């Protein structure tokens, strides 16, 4: 039982990390939808390979599916290159066409074999550990761990080896081309990886949720960091956290593991979206509020500064006068005075306001700008 818990979580983590790494580059290239397209379009590849090998675990399945994935990218680009169809429309035309070929093939020829639509769309992580790898009669763990582990290793090697090239081709493809780095080759290299990864993950989480694993963690990491290397690391960590927490969520509520992982991915993104310092929604809202009060305080000290030492100063420095002169309603004026008092920009004696040295400096600085 414990072994089963560990196995499933291990598969989930390895799958999540393998998806998150190429996902970073897809997010930066604004191509996450391409992963969606690939994950659907590989279906006919899988079906045809299944007919050839009559087995669902043959490595030929992965190769055939990956080839179909790359074919999808080629079709999309060919359509796009005619300049008659934009990229999003090209994606929208290509993958349903390929996907439907797969669906027709299944319904026509594979009605009585184990290749049902539910498995294709949603996968089933819970059964993944049942398919185990035997070496000389020893059980060395679930097959999925080895399949996804190999894919993870492949992704990691590619990214480590061509980190510089991927970065340049993603940031500035035309410079990459002039320097001789063949951005098209890098593009197809990356797309091949995405295809292979999608096929591998497909088995565990199905074709729809693969996209969550590919897009979710990188999009979350992108909110946190300004460095590509850190974005890659964070995506891997966030993907793992989503996988493990999703697993236990599923265990607790007895629901689909893949669904729970995707839910956690979304929750995690939402959490970061609101909470991340500096860039999160809450931080932005707080900054806006602070700016509002800062601005009001500046108006107040400038007002006092302009009348300071003049005959009308006493009348102008009256708290009750502020709403008239600065057109603030009394409640707002009171709050601004309180804010300025807290910041030691003004002093209040009875109903009279006087500037502190600090308040004078703030006013002078604001007037100089």
């Amino acid at each position, binding site marked *: 039982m414990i072994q089963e818990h560990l196995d499933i979580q291990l598969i989930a983590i390895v799958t999540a990390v393998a998806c998150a790494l190429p996902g970073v580059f897809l997010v*930066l290239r604004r191509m996450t939808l391409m992963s969606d397209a690939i994950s659907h379009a590989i279906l006919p590849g899988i079906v045809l390979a299944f007919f050839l090998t009559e087995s669902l675990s043959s490595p030929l399945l992965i190769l055939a599916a990956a080839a179909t994935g790359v074919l999808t990218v080629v079709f999309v680009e060919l359509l796009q290159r005619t*300049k008659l169809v934009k990229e999003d429309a090209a994606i929208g035309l290509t993958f349903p066409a390929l996907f439907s070929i797969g669906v027709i093939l299944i319904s026509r020829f594979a009605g009585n074999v184990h290749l049902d639509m539910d498995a294709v769309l949603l996968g089933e992580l819970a059964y993944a550990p049942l398919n185990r790898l035997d070496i000389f009669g020893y059980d060395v763990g679930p097959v999925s761990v080895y399949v996804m582990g190999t894919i993870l290793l492949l992704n990691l090697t590619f990214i480590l*080896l*061509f*980190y*510089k*090239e991927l*970065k*340049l081709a*993603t*940031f*500035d493809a*035309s*410079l990459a*081309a*002039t*320097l*001789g*780095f063949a951005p098209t080759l890098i593009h197809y290299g990356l797309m091949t990886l995405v295809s292979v990864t999608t096929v591998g993950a497909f088995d565990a989480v199905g074709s729809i949720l693969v996209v969550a694993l590919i897009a979710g963690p990188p999009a979350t990491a*992108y909110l946190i*960091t*300004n*460095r*590509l290397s*850190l*974005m890659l690391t964070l995506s891997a960590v966030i993907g793992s956290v989503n996988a493990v927490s999703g697993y236990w969520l599923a265990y607790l509520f007895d629901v689909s593991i893949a669904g729970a992982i995707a839910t956690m991915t979304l929750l995690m993104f939402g959490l970061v979206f609101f909470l991340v310092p500096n860039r999160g929604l809450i931080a932005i809202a707080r900054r806006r509020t602070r700016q509002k009060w800062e601005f009001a305080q500046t108006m107040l000290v400038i007002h006092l500064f302009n009348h300071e030492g003049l005959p009308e100063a006493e009348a102008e420095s009256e708290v009750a006068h502020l709403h008239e002169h600065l057109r603030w309603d009394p409640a707002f004026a009171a709050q601004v005075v309180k804010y300025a008092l807290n910041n030691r920009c003004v002093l209040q004696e009875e109903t009279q306001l006087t500037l502190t040295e600090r308040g004078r400096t703030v006013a002078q600085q604001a007037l100089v700008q």
Partner: protein
Amino acid sequence: MQASEAKAIEVTDLTVAYQEQPVLWDVDLDVPPGVLLSIVGPNGAGKTTLIKAILGLVRPAAGNVLIYDKPYEAQRRIVGYVPQRGTVDWDFPTNVLDVVMMGRYGALGWVRRPGRQERELAMQALEKVGMEAYTTRQISQLSGGQQQRVFLARALVQDATVYLMDEPFQGVDATTERAIVTLLQELREKGKTVVVVHHDLQTVTDYFDWVMLLNIRRIASGPVAETFTPENLRTTYGGRVAFMTK
């Protein structure tokens, strides 16, 4: 042919078409080494396309481009390129120093990573453009003029012989523009060839010593004094330009 007579850039009979619509038509251009040349012409004249065709970024329908007597592919190392600022995503997660180091990637070749030497060269280039205080700055937090200077530093770090720049003055303030011009003139003093796509006709005589007037066809090219004439300008802009000569 003697080495001293080699042209820095030699474009012959270049025609580029997008879907049968010619963008450049039978263009010839000879650029001698050590000149600062501006390409001017109205919108849609094919200025950017010409630069891209020289760099092999667009495939010509006909014609030929040579850099010091060899095709571009053989001369990548000696050509530096400054694309238009708007062609990249400035929200990309990286900092100023990192972008400048990209200029060294060509010399590094595949797989090899930049190291201390590249870092030092990038620092020097940033000093030249007055951006040394911004090395760790996230690129999304730069102003337009700063972005432009970062791109310039990235080209400088290539230590090229021929530079091609697409509107390096776009959206920069007067001070930055002067600083960039001084830098371009320094490059020329060192014998480098600099080709700049330019928009402001008023400054052509001040900034450049050569000019090419382009409007799908080449109208004229040569030293500014001989080429930048009201008559040529009228031909280029179709009489729509109220031109002030100095």
